């Protein structure tokens, strides 16, 4: 799939070096030299940096182009070619990425060390000045290859589609957490301990149904400003119900959650929401 055509765009100032080897094949047609009318655009550096993933990539390109073994690089010749690229870009007055200049320095150093008699290591074996560079080139090349392998793996959204059927009622079931009554009571105990409310006797003695009834009374008064006192009592609840309601009303009065109004002696008693409009005079 990779079109080799992009290689053509790589500037090659020393294109005459390897006449024996075409550097690109476009539509089956080998190209052994750069087109003579090759225009080096003003953004040559960008093109250059896009074409190569760094100095190691450029070096590999130079080596592979000449079908050389990475293990036995003719360092002088490769250095010359590498420098030719660098100089070209320098000529076009661009600041080269630091990495490329560092590599130029490394190459120059290896070249000079190759000329010197090699110092023997303890084992008596000579260390090739190119060894470190060769290792780096190989290490980089294997990941360059791995990247190409990745690119060639079948990939979702490019080579296949993940299937999905329509679901008409796509709604999440959300399961609310369970509560143990015990947990809630323990939580309450801790709150009351913190607040030291256990010492208040009045809290402990009150039947909870009274509190429940208090809520119910308040709720009835939510939509209307007042109700007549007898409205709160239902005969069906029996004596206990009446007592619970009465206690609830007393507690609400004490906590100022309701007002009790009587406009005239022996008149109707009203239970009124505090702050609500006045009870009509009969």
């Amino acid at each position: 799939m990779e079109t080799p055509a992009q290689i053509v765009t790589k500037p090659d100032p020393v294109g005459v070096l390897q006449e024996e080897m075409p550097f690109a094949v476009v539509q089956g047609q080998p190209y052994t030299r750069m087109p003579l009318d090759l225009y080096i655009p003003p953004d040559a550096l960008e093109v250059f940096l896009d074409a190569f993933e760094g100095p190691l990539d450029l070096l590999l390109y130079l080596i592979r182009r000449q079908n050389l073994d990475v293990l036995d690089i003719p360092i002088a010749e490769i250095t010359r070619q590498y420098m030719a690229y660098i100089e070209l870009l320098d000529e076009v007055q661009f600041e080269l990425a630091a990495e490329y200049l560092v590599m130029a320095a490394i190459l120059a150093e290896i070249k000079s060390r190759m000329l010197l008699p090699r110092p023997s290591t303890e084992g008596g074996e000579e260390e090739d000045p190119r060894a470190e560079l060769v290792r780096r080139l190989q290490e980089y090349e294997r990941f360059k290859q791995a990247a190409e392998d990745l690119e060639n793996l079948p990939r979702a959204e490019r080579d296949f589609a993940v299937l999905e059927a329509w679901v008409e009622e796509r709604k999440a079931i959300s399961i609310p957490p369970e509560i143990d009554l015990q947990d809630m009571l323990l939580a309450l105990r801790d709150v009351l301990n913190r607040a030291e409310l256990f010492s208040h006797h009045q809290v402990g003695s009150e039947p909870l149904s009274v509190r429940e009834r208090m809520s119910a009374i308040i709720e009835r008064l939510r939509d209307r400003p007042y109700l007549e006192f007898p409205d709160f009592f239902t005969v069906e609840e029996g004596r206990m119900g009446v007592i619970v309601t009465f206690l609830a009303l007393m507690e609400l009065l004490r906590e100022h959650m309701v007002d009790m109004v009587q406009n005239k002696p022996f008149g109707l008693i009203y239970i009124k929401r505090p702050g609500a409009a006045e009870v009509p005079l009969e």
Partner: protein
Amino acid sequence: MSDTATTTPLKHIIEALLLAAGGPLSANQLVSLFAADEAYSMEEISKALEELAGDLAGRGIELVEVASGYRLQTRPSLLPWISRLWEERPQRYSRALLETLAMIAYRQPITRGEIEEVRGVSVRSNIIRTLQEREWIRVVGHRDVPGKPALFGTTRAFLDYFNLSTLDELPTLAEIRDMETLDPELDFDPDTPDAGPEIIESLAHGSEEPTAPPGDTGESHT
């Protein structure tokens, strides 16, 4: 590659296309998808759709025609399984939520400010919202003070959830204080069998493994 493609019957290509689209494709769209190479007539496409619908009988998906075209959808009968795909795993309620709920149950009608006064920390809005969404608490009125704060009370659903017929079946505060021992023998109201073996069991369980990580108990009930 193209060998397989040409031998794949039209109905199977259409099936794959509908499933790859994940939504409806009109007959016109289908016709245009094939236009580039082997053109199929509208009749051929319709016939393939019919065949496909027949093939799917007894399977978990079905072909339906909707306003914008044909689509493959899961059968409604499989919804019980399918909805579980998007099940949200329950998390445990926070301590703050339990305390707030207990305060409302025992001290209703009560405002948020009053709960905060007793708890000594603020009550976050999402706690109130969660309790309202579960329909355990409701706003019963408003206190007649500046700001008219809402008064909260518990609901019928709250009683049902805890298997209570009235709030009186909840232990008194005095009994709660004595719960300190966490004695598995202690049934805080032996007269109400409603309290249920679950609660007792969870007490016993709790005393044996006090370090059980949160979430574990939730799972054991499911």
